[in-house]
Every structure is written in structure tokens, then in C-alpha cells.
């Protein structure tokens, strides 16, 4: 079994995290739906969390897990405020397409 695949080291986790971050960053720009854009931001935050935990494990300290704890708190706050803004926007425009919110466009 062990000869089947290489044992995952830190670099494997960093590459996986980079792939997830790329997916999230592409999703922010490609999708035309505010809720999916917020979900893409969550994917990026989770990719960063994975990096923190993997590097913390590599260095043998719990600091990475503590920063992950703070990132999750910020993500919860961001989701609450972001979804409140989405509800407010939907009430005004009856749309979730970010291109339809142009009141602040110069």
C-alpha cells in the first residue's frame, strides 16, 4: 500500500491549498451571482486555513491552528455582513447579478 503513492509531505498540502485558492479566485470573477461569489471567498479562506494548519504541523507548534481559529471567526463575521448586504441589494433590485448594482459606478 505504501508503495502505491508518495507519502504526503508539506509540499503536497501547499500544492493542494494553491489549487483550491486558484479555484476560489477564478470563481469570484467567472460567476455572475453574488452568492456564488461569496462561496468562492469561503473556498479561498479555507485554502489559506489548510496552509496555516499544514505549516503549523510542519513547525510543530499550535500557532497555525490558532490563526485558523481567528480566520474562521472573520469568515463567520464576513458571511453575516455579506449576506445582510445581499438581502438588502436583492430587496432594492430584485436581482443577484453583480453587474446590475451600478449605483456606485463612477
Amino acid at each position, binding site marked *: 500500500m*505504501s508503495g*502505491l*503513492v508518495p*507519502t*504526503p*509531505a*508539506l*509540499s*503536497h498540502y*501547499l*500544492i*493542494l491549498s*494553491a489549487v*483550491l485558492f*486558484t*479555484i476560489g*479566485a*477564478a*470563481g469570484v*470573477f*467567472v*460567476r*455572475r*451571482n453574488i*452568492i*456564488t461569489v*461569496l*462561496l*468562492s471567498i*469561503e*473556498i479561498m479562506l*479555507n485554502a489559506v*486555513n489548510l496552509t496555516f*494548519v499544514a505549516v*503549523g504541523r*510542519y513547525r*510543530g507548534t*499550535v500557532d497555525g*491552528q*490558532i490563526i*485558523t*481559529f*481567528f480566520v*474562521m*471567526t*472573520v*469568515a*463567520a*463575521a464576513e*458571511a*453575516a*455582513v455579506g*449576506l445582510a*448586504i445581499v*438581502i*438588502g441589494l436583492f430587496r432594492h433590485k430584485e*436581482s*443577484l*447579478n453583480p*453587474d446590475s448594482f451600478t449605483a456606485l459606478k463612477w
Partner: protein
Amino acid sequence: MGSDLLFYIFGAVAVGASLAVIGQRNPIYSVLLLILSFGALSGLYILLDAPFVAVIQIIVYAGAIMVLFLFVVMLLNAPHEETDYDERVHPLLRAGPTRFGVVLAIGLIAELWWALTKGRETGPFGDGSVSSVAAIGRSLFTEYSFQFEVTSVLILVAMVGAVVLARREPKSEGRP
């Protein structure tokens, strides 16, 4: 060791579910697929000897934040995304942020390819255990106690902000 294979299984599930989140046009399926992705990430945290993070990933992320998303998606009842451009046009030829997003994605993939080919292999993880919840709590309430308190202020501000933003206008309440 079987846990080596588990890394690849969880990683493949996380990447596949995240790609499906981006590819999905119905936000309800997007939210459910993202919960699957978070479950796979939680498995990865257990492989990384971090059971505390794995548990709060499930409870806080999949349990609280994603249910909030699901609630808002169902409340707004606008399942399908309307697009004003032709889906058959190549992404590079579309206008505005979509084109920029494609360029950004290509740049990130090129960077990733560079890291994969040129990056040097890091050594295996050390033997030291970081899974102690007691050590996390001790560090959180001594070394990081100020940051912990600031976090509570952040949550209070977010709570007040969400209530103010989602409140109905006082004007509309007087209407019949």
C-alpha cells in the same frame, strides 16, 4: 500506510467539489457541494494531527455558516443565474471582469506549474504532536488573549452591522 492514500482521496474530493461549486448555476447545489468540500478538508485536518480544527470546521463552517448561506438562498428564492452574455463565446472574448478572471486563473495556474516543477521537495512532517486541545487553549488564553478579546469586538460589530443592514426601512412600515 493507508493514511497516505486518504490524503489523495480527501484532496481529490475537495478539489472536485470546489470545481463543481464554481461550475454550478444553481446556488443551492453550490452550497451543498461546498459542504462536501469542507467535509473533505476536515478529513485533511485530522490527517494533519489537528482534531480541534477538524471539529470546528464541521461545526462552525459546515454547520453554521453554510446553513446561513442555504437559508439566504432559499429566502431570496432566485435559483438560476441570469447572464447577459452568450455562454458559447470563449471566456477570453467576453467583456469586463470575466476576461480578467480568466487571465488571473491562467496566471495562477502558470505559477502553480512553476511551483510544481521548480519547487524543491520539503521533508516529511516531524514526529512532534500538535493535537493537544489543552495546548491550544493555553496558548489562546495567554499568548493570544488580546487577539481573542478583539475577536469578540469583531463579532459584536458584525452582529450589529448585519441587523442594521437587513432591517426594513422605517418608511415602508407605515404603508398599508
